[in-house]
């Protein structure tokens, strides 16, 4: 018999179940209350794949980082201050090609929604845990190949950590922050650049996402890819459409070398559903603009994406480094990328009161995908090589000069140099153990969704319903298959 109402109402089957549910409900509370169907879509994506769960579970990562009993932030190589520029969430699916003004592609972090300042180990471990997970999820239809990759996990992580250590030492010594413009023999990156260049040359985003009627191009509606009904383009409400020219005018001012104002003449726009994982519930739109000329062949598609606060461990007071969320996104991109305009149309402002990122929607912008790590792209050697490249790239991000012109690279290099082999081994040990825990957490999450429903047990209240205008903007997302 229950002695009190304190805990008997909804007993959790194990303490980690309770922690997991509470962490997600707290982190997503405002979204769950205001746009539950969009959060349900995100949770369904997370339930469907372990790597998607990793992408969408940054608040859990932060919780564990702050948990003294978790080894996630434990290290013999801690450096709490100074804090370098951080990509916020540099797991491998947040790297990809970006097309610069001259048309060349470069490998860069392409999702900087959480970019901020953070301890260097935060970024490195987001990467190495992601590598461990990717290795365990590679070659889903070839158990032997996957087993070979799993056996190589320590080597893969050591390669990332060693490359990081080497690169940060080089940057501390004055090495330039080089742009990665080719795969350099790395199977995954070669494939990425090849596909990126092919589709960029063809302007494939125009053929995939728009229709040309006479001389007028418009964004299509419905599912651009009929085999992927969860990605959908729909009408934007009138108020949102009307606010786009003003947004683009303000956003234009945040660009380093803004094209003429006519470039951003809005030709069409559509509500976009189905992008990202963590950002799945956020408002997204595609905007077709005139581009360099009236000709429909050089029309340009921009993506407008709602932003939120970063999820990082925090630092010394005032604990924030930027004035606004859009300012954080713009400043971080310019600092982290090898050239400040790796995407020349990357800017940010606010739209309908929401902080938003505006960036190029280009088929040349390819992202590393875990589900492509099969066959020749999923060998131990391929993943080790990829780990080496990304480890060095994260070091390059951390070597970016701070606003005062100083660099954190020497401080990091000094800490890491105490024991290079020990540093690499520590990352291998901690990262794979956490990846294993993450897979168990994924199962817990799936169970919680089944048992508690898409609100994870958060009591919803009808008074939290959005206003009609907000409801129109949030729209009706496509159904997402979950388990």
């Amino acid at each position, binding site marked *: 018999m229950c002695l009190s109402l304190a805990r008997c109402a909804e007993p959790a089957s194990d303490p980690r179940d309770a922690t997991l549910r509470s962490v997600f409900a707290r982190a997503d509370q405002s979204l769950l209350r205001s746009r539950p169907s969009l959060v349900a879509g995100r949770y369904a994506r997370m339930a469907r794949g372990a790597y998607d769960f990793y992408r969408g579970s940054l608040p859990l990562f932060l919780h564990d980082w702050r948990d003294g009993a978790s080894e996630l932030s434990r290290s013999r190589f801690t450096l709490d201050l100074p804090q370098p520029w951080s990509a916020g969430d540099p797991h491998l699916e947040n790297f990809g090609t970006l097309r610069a003004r001259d048309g060349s592609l470069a490998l860069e972090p392409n999702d900087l929604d959480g970019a901020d300042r953070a301890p260097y180990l935060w970024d490195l471990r987001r990467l190495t845990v992601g590598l461990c997970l990717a290795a365990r999820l590679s070659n889903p239809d070839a158990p032997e190949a996957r087993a070979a990759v799993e056996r190589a996990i320590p080597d893969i992580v050591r390669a990332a950590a060693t490359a990081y250590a080497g690169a940060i030492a080089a940057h501390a010594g004055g090495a330039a922050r080089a742009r990665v413009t080719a795969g350099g023999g790395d199977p995954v990156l070669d494939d990425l650049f090849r596909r990126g260049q092919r589709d960029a040359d063809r302007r494939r985003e125009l053929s995939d996402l728009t229709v040309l009627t006479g001389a007028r191009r418009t964004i299509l509606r419905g599912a651009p890819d009929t085999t992927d009904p969860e990605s959908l383009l729909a009408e934007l409400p009138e108020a949102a459409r009307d606010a786009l020219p003003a947004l683009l005018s303000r956003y234009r001012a945040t660009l380093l070398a803004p094209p003429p104002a006519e470039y951003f003449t809005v030709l069409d726009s559509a509500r976009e559903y189905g992008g990202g994982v963590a950002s799945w519930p956020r408002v997204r739109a595609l905007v077709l603009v005139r581009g360099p000329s009236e000709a429909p062949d050089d029309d340009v598609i921009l993506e407008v994406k709602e932003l939120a606060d970063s999820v990082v461990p*925090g630092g010394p007071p005032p604990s924030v480094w930027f004035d606004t969320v859009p300012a954080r996104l713009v400043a971080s991109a310019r600092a982290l990328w090898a050239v400040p305009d790796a995407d020349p149309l990357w800017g940010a402002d606010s739209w309908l009161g929401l902080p938003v990122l505006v960036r190029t929607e280009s088929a040349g912008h390819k992202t590393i995908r875990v589900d492509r790590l099969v066959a020749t792209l999923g060998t131990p050697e391929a993943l080790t090589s990829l780990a080496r490249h990304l480890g060095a790239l994260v070091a390059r991000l951390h070597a970016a000069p701070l606003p005062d012109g100083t660099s954190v690279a020497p401080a990091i290099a000094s800490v890491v140099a105490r024991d290079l082999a020990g540093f690499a081994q520590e990352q291998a040990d901690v990262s794979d153990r956490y990846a294993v825990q993450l897979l168990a957490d994924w199962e817990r999450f799936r169970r919680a969704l089944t048992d508690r429903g898409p609100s994870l047990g958060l009591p919803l209240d009808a008074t939290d319903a959005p206003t009609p205008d907000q409801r129109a903007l949030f729209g009706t997302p496509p159904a997402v298959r979950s388990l």
Partner: protein
Amino acid sequence: MSIRRTVLALSLALTPAVAVAQTPATPEAIPTAGPSTSAGTTSFAVRPGLEVFGQYALRLVDGSSGDTAWFHAFDLPRAHASLGASYGPVQGRFVLEAVRSASEGALLGVAGDSLVLRVREAWAGAAITRWIELRAGVVPTLTIPEIEGTWRLRAVAPTPLEVTGLGAPADLGVTVRARLPADVGWVAVGAYNGEGYTNRELNRGKNFEAAVALHFPRGAMRPLTLFASYVLGSSGTGLARADRLTGALLWQGDRVRAGVSVTRGWGVDDDGTRGALLVEGFARIEPVTRLLVGLRATWWQRDDRVDDDHVLTLLGSVGWRLFEPLEVHVAVSRQTAGARTLAALPGTENTELRAVTRVVF
């Protein structure tokens, strides 16, 4: 005296009390609907109040590599505006507090990161008998107010129980307090949502708190108070255990107020398996009239499963009561942390120098 007169005059001017006998007689009652809200429409006296802390703080943060970061800012640690009312055994109190609209580390707030007002207390109460008092609404909880009320230097620093998140000073719920015979103290119980006054309820479980404060009925040792409380609680949608046991030995004298308190927590930060320990020793001394000296040492074991996950805070302050409602304080604190804490919470090791003013009406 002139200040006192001014305060008195101001209080009278602000008090919207009109004696019933002085209410002009209505020659003929006109049928009308009542006001849409009833506050302020009765003839009962209400009492406004105000407490404001203004602060300048300089914080020097020590990095593990030897680097130091610093930051300084003017701040408003507290701005409370209250209305209290009582009539016979019935009373009510409403307290608004100013707070930054974005939580620490966030950029998204209300109109930037404006100071906004939120409800800190809003309760209706009644003395059911001479011995028992009941309150319901957003009520002060039982443990933090007792310890903070002994410390009485909230302007210098909030109680560690609040800072560490192990407890909340107020919550939505109900409390019942009974005075013990011979004036030897009180016992009380409370039932709350359990998420504190700053958060919505996230589960069907409710927190229960029981507390007792005992002191001598008379004599020189009367200020000595033995306090104990237990919170049987839960937090989050996962209904994680969040129990707290607090024991304290307090000295609630006029010129000397001091205490030692120990709080053991079972279930912290939505993790029912995590334990925490908080030990605090403090003293507030008024060696000469108007001179206020504060000393406090706090040991916080964030996680009892980990040796080096702890924070030690030492604090000293000197203050002067310029006038009855106005105090100024200078405070210095030094915080050190275990290696595990530093990795998990960057910036925990720091030294802080603060100048604080407090005004209360």
